[in-house]
């Protein structure tokens, strides 16, 4: 069984640009959450989606948006990139909306220059 897959694995963008990160959850998992992990810190919650609806949002600006598709895959979009958006973006999937057992992908390393 494939785990949580994220693409791309690495990305370099320029300030002001837009980026789209993608996540495919474990087969059968309906909940996808996004986290931002800045170097040397723990992951910070950005969004939770369950059954294609936004169920939770962390303390991030409106430049961050996401959506979940009918096949439960998800996209995270970030507009008007800032240097401070450089981080590892993690996607986690779980069977139910509860993150009782949340399985993380290996992340997308975003560097903003």
């Amino acid at each position, binding site marked *: 069984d494939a785990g949580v897959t994220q693409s791309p694995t690495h990305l370099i963008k320029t300030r002001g640009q837009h980026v789209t990160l993608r996540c495919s959850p474990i087969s059968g998992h309906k909940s996808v*959450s996004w986290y931002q992990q800045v170097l040397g810190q*723990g*992951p910070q919650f950005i969004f*939770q989606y*369950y059954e294609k609806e936004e*169920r939770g949002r962390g303390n991030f600006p409106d430049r961050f948006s996401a959506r979940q598709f009918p096949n439960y895959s998800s996209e995270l979009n970030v507009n008007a990139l800032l240097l401070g958006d450089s981080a590892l973006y993690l996607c986690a999937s779980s069977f139910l*909306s509860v993150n009782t057992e*949340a*399985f*993380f992908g290996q992340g997308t390393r975003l560097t903003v220059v």
Partner: protein
Amino acid sequence: QQQVKQSPQSLIVQKGGIPIINCAYENTAFDYFPWYQQFPGKGPALLIAIRPDVSEKKEGRFTISFNKSAKQFSLHIMDSQPGDSATYFCAAIKHGSPNFGNEKLTFGTGTRLTIIP
């Protein structure tokens, strides 16, 4: 506001020793406390988790001790090996229902563990 405090920031232990990582939380509504292991360039992997109605849980060489009254929990790694060298994160979550949502994991700041041969 940091709701889960983790210590120490880094830890060096000799092979076979028992590293102990401590976490403290503030929100008494948290009802599930997982520990994650993260290797460089990888996402966090769930190691072991505990609910607040249990004081201790063991899985293989990993043990969680939980003190509900003190709002503290800790991870012990028995017979530590160099392959255990990684960053460890404690986390906490308050469960709701699918209709409530916003069930986010709140992570500690991480402990970089090094096991020396």
